[in-house]
């Protein structure tokens, strides 16, 4: 029992596990994968030690992890899981199912690159590949934000106006394995903040229904539209939850984390830890007289309405992801939502080292409408390195 709030240190992974415990999850089904393992280990420890009263299901795959969360949720229990990269994509079928079945499952995804070759470091292409599934997606940049956002995720997902699953994303190793300060909150305050789990369409043997039966096109269209309707309704729920969170715990969050944006002529847009590091680049560039600000995106689904904030400024968008044959996914989404072109830097793939000095140089070298892969010499072929020599 946490009787009062406590200031300590924690890794990003431990913050996620602790938040799941403090949110009193009831069923956890998870499968280990680097760099998520510490989350699973911690939760299994919490369950065995009695620190958390929950059923932990040590499933045999990520597909089954999400399947079990779906089963637990529809039976009326608060369900949680965590995964990464290949695990996330292995459960992709059930990720779609959870959203389609309107189940408020909460999942942490520790962002990691996809093979081949084997690479366990940070990249956002894994979760961004699941952006069209009906899950709410949020990207965090500090250990405290990981904890706080996980607590908020349960309240948002379980709101009747939403009833959609939420995915909290944090950079593999860059955030999952680093240690920062963390203030955890008391049980009493958390329970006042997150209402008890209540799923109106949970299975009830005294009122039998068929779930997910054969559905005609006409009915199906309406069921799908309802997902979008709830996605839109979630905007107000997110804002309300973040407001209430600030009131209860004193820490403020929003759609974006903005740093010196108000008078900025140039905006650096990024997600995750790179979005935080960009603030240091802003300080350096401001000293050189460049009016620049940093806008770190937190919520990617629903994607916020940023038009008023973006129009009239030069945009430098850092994508730690890529959609082959199209471009950076954040830059593409901003173009789709606002019609604005940007200078799109593809940087940080597979954990590529990107420093605040690099980010400052992106701003100085910006050419709006152009896409550049950081660290890539376009005159050289790279495919040879994908095949090892004996």
């Amino acid at each position: 029992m946490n009787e009062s709030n406590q200031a300590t240190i924690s890794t990003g992974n431990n913050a996620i596990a602790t938040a799941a415990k403090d949110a009193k999850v009831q069923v956890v089904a998870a499968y280990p994968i680097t760099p998520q393992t510490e989350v699973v280990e911690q939760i299994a420890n919490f369950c065995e030690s009695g620190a958390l009263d929950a059923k932990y299901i040590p499933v045999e795959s990520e597909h089954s992890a999400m399947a079990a969360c779906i089963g637990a949720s529809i039976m009326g229990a608060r369900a949680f899981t965590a995964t990464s990269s290949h695990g996330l994509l292995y459960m992709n079928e059930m990720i779609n199912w959870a959203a389609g079945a309107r189940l408020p499952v909460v999942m942490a995804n520790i962002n990691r690159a996809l093979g081949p070759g084997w690479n366990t470091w940070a990249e956002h292409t894994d979760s961004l590949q699941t952006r069209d599934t009906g899950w709410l997606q949020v990207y965090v940049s500090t250990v405290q934000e990981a904890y706080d956002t996980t607590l908020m995720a349960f309240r948002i997902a379980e709101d009747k106006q939403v009833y959609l699953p939420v995915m909290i994303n944090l950079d593999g190793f860059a955030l999952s394995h680093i240690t920062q300060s963390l203030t955890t909150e008391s049980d009493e305050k958390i329970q006042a903040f997150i209402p008890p789990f209540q799923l109106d369409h949970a299975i009830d043997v005294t009122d039998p229904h068929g779930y997910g039966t054969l559905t005609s096109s006409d009915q199906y269209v309406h069921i799908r539209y309802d997902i979008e309707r709830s996605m839109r309704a979630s905007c107000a729920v997110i804002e309300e939850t973040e407001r209430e969170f600030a009131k209860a715990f004193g820490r403020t969050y929003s759609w974006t984390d903005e740093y010196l944006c108000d008078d900025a002529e140039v905006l650096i847009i990024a997600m995750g830890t790179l979005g935080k590091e960009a603030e240091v680049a802003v300080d350096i560039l401001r000293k050189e007289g460049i009016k620049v600000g940093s806008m770190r995106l937190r919520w990617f689904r629903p994607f916020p309405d940023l038009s008023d904030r973006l129009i009239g400024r030069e945009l430098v968008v850092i994508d730690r992801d890529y959609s082959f044959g199209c471009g950076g996914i954040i830059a593409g989404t901003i173009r789709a939502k606002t019609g604005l072109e940007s200078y799109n830097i593809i940087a940080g793939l597979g954990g590529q080292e990107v420093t605040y000095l690099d980010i400052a140089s992106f701003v100085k070298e910006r050419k709006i409408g152009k896409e550049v892969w950081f660290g890539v010499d376009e005159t050289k072929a790279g495919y040879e390195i994908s095949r090892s020599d004996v």
Partner: protein
Amino acid sequence: MYEIRLHSRGGQGGVTAAKLIALAAFRDGKHATAAPFYGAERRGAPVVSFIRIDDNPIKIYSQIKKPDLIIVLDPSIMELVDVFDGLKEDGTVLINSQKPFDLAQHEAHYVDLTGIALKVGLVVAGTPILNTPVIGALAKIGLFSRDSARSAIEEMFTDPKNTEAAMLAFDEVHQ
């Protein structure tokens, strides 16, 4: 901002040492980030951890290129890795060693952490534990207070030998 690079071998507790440093600095009222750099290392392979300490929240996640302090938990690594790479001109070094190191322009401290661990019986599965003694040595060279070192260790470990070893290391750091 004060930046530290810690060199150890996989299994020696370098990652935990980095966490302890962050916790001790945090107990001193500072902001701190400890970031182990993970490759595909296994037991025995050289491992690097980065620690940043500052009065303000730390926003940098990239690796430390020019450290203020370099800690070497296992001096045999120095044969494999240039552990002093990028060390600031006025930078400091702390090495786990029985004998002094002569590093011309740098302030070099040494302490026999292995000997201390063996002396107080701080051995797990046949391996001397270095991550708690090093915290005492770091308190001595002024990274954080002796009290914060003690409370950080007591928060993370129950065995009093850890504090005992740290306090011994505090007294035995030489320049």
